[in-house]
Structure formats: C-alpha cells, structure tokens
C-alpha cells in the first residue's frame, strides 16, 4: 500500500510490477538526460558571442538532431513493446477469481469452487478498529494463494468501475455486459490494497479492494472452511 509521502511507485508484489518499475526507472533516466542536455544548452545561450550570426544552413547538425531523437525513442519503444506483450500474456491459471463492481462495493466469486461468493464493503471510519486503514479496509478480503497464476475476470452490474491493485500492476475496467480478463502472480504474502479507479458515482472513493496473499495450505484451509 501507499504510505506517507510516497512519491514513487508502491513496492512490487508480482514479477510484472517489477518489470513495470524497471521500465519506469529506465524511461525516467532518459527523460532526465534529455532535460539536463536541453537545460544546459538553454543556459549557455545567455553566454554566447553570436558566433554563428551569419549561418544559413548546417546539414550535419540537422542530420544529428533528426536521427539522434529517433534512436533515443527506439530505446524507449522497444522495452515498452516487450512489456506490453508480457502484460498481455495469459498463462494457465491455477485459480480464477471473478469480480463484479456495484454501486458501491465489489462482489467476488471463486469460479473454480461451488458457492464461494461474497460482497466486500469498505469498513466505515466510525466502525474501524484502531489498527485499521481508513477508507482502505474492507469487511471481506479476497484471499488468494501466493506463487500461483491467478486469473481475474472483471465486470460490473451497473456503471463502469475499475479493479486496481497497484502493488500487483493490475488495473482492469469493469464494464456492464463485458468480461475483461487479466492475470497476475503474487510472489510474497501480505495485504495489497487498491481502490476503484474509474469515477463511478458518489461513493467511488469508498469501494476499496483488499487482497490477502497467503501460502497455498492456508488458502486451501480458507476455501474448505468457506465451502461447507
């Protein structure tokens, strides 16, 4: 989750988010290099002596400042495309989770099992425990096994919602009448928080998502205790 004064991305909990962070840092470094270069050139304009006042054309410099940006763009475009296709890949899932957005809560369904369905509401601030997270904690968490491929199917029952967990690098729109899918792989246990990311009405800010990532044997225990 995001903590105080966190300006960067959240710590990753999935291999895809790690890749997204690498790409973010890579692109940012290129931006910094360009900004420093352009800043230096602009700054130095104040101190020139009009050396090239009668210059009419310079083929060489024209070539350089046309081709060089193209090459720099390639260095951003190719890793970006690689990441795009990595994110799109659907591996064979262990567990399928279906999430339906409502005004204003999420309901979940474990499609592989019979009768595991529940609604997940935000805990209002006046009912919150002292160690709870305001506007983030929910009454029923989504329990998922770590180190397993998980497929998430997202849809909505009324207006458009968006199911988002930044630490896992997942953001999928839930659109009524459509079923969107993506997959993720959680590589550590923990609680991962997210919020609806599509303006969906008055209580848009009050329908958070909490994923509880647990080892597989705990997941099996949880399933068997909820299945009966």
């Amino acid at each position, binding site marked *: 989750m995001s903590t105080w004064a966190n300006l960067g991305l959240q710590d990753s909990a999935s291999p895809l988010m790690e890749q997204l962070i690498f790409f973010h840092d890579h692109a940012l470094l290129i931006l910094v290099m360009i900004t420093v270069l352009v800043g230096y050139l602009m700054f130095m304009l104040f101190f020139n002596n009009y050396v090239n006042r009668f210059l009419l054309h310079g083929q060489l410099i024209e070539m350089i400042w046309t081709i060089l940006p193209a090459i720099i763009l390639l260095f951003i475009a190719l890793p970006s495309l690689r990441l795009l296709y990595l994110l799109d890949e659907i591996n064979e899932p262990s567990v399928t989770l279906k999430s339906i957005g409502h005004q204003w809560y999420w309901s979940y369904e474990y499609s592989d099992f*019979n009768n595991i369905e529940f609604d997940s509401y935000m805990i209002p601030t006046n009912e919150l425990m002292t160690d709870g997270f305001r506007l983030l904690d929910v009454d029923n968490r989504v329990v998922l096994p770590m180190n397993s491929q998980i497929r998430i199917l997202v849809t909505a029952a009324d207006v458009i919602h968006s199911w988002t967990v930044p630490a896992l690098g997942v953001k999928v729109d839930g659109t009524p009448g459509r079923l969107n899918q993506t997959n993720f792989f959680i590589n550590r246990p923990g609680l991962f928080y997210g919020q609806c990311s599509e303006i969906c009405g008055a209580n848009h800010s*009050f329908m958070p998502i909490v994923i509880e990532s647990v080892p*597989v044997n705990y997941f099996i225990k949880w399933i068997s205790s909820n299945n009966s």
Partner: protein
Amino acid sequence: MSLVDKLNYYSTRKSFKYGIPFLIMMVAGSFGLQQFSNLRYQYAKKQPVTPEEMKKYGVSMKNRKDVTLESEYDKVKSVDIENWENKRGPRPWEEQEDQPTTAKH
C-alpha cells in the same frame, strides 16, 4: 596427405589447441549448469492448487478446462444490467452524514 597427417598438422595450431577445449567446455558446461537449474524449473512449473489436491481436503474444485472465459461470460450474461439507478450523493443543503458510508443493502 592422410587424415592423421592433417590432424597432426592442425593440432599444432593455437586455434585448435585452445579453441577445441574451449568449445567442448562451453557445450559440456551448459549440461553441467542444467543440473543446478533443474530444481528451479521443476518447482516453478508445479501448480499447487489442483482439483486432485483439493479433493484430499474434501473440497470439490472444478476442472480447469470447465472454467473458461466463455463459460464465465455465460454466467455474467444473467446479471441484470438493464435495471439500475444512478445513485447520487447528498447535496450540501440536504442532511449529510459525518462519515462516508457505503450502506449495505
């Protein structure tokens, strides 16, 4: 020049004396390294949550082939998306609760 003579001739060359052992080491080394990485791939492919495993704990899990995007979409079709209202929040002049709540139905 016979084959043996040719071999003797080439064996004096540095590219032969150092090159052949190097190439052999590269090819054989990859097989050697495979032994170390074997364990990792063996367990990376392991799917811990399977219908067979869940059966041991008395939980019936559907077969992986039965849970597809299409089968789930058929279920989603039954969700009533025609009848919904755009719920609005309280206006400033209306009675307003102190805390934002998502009232359960």
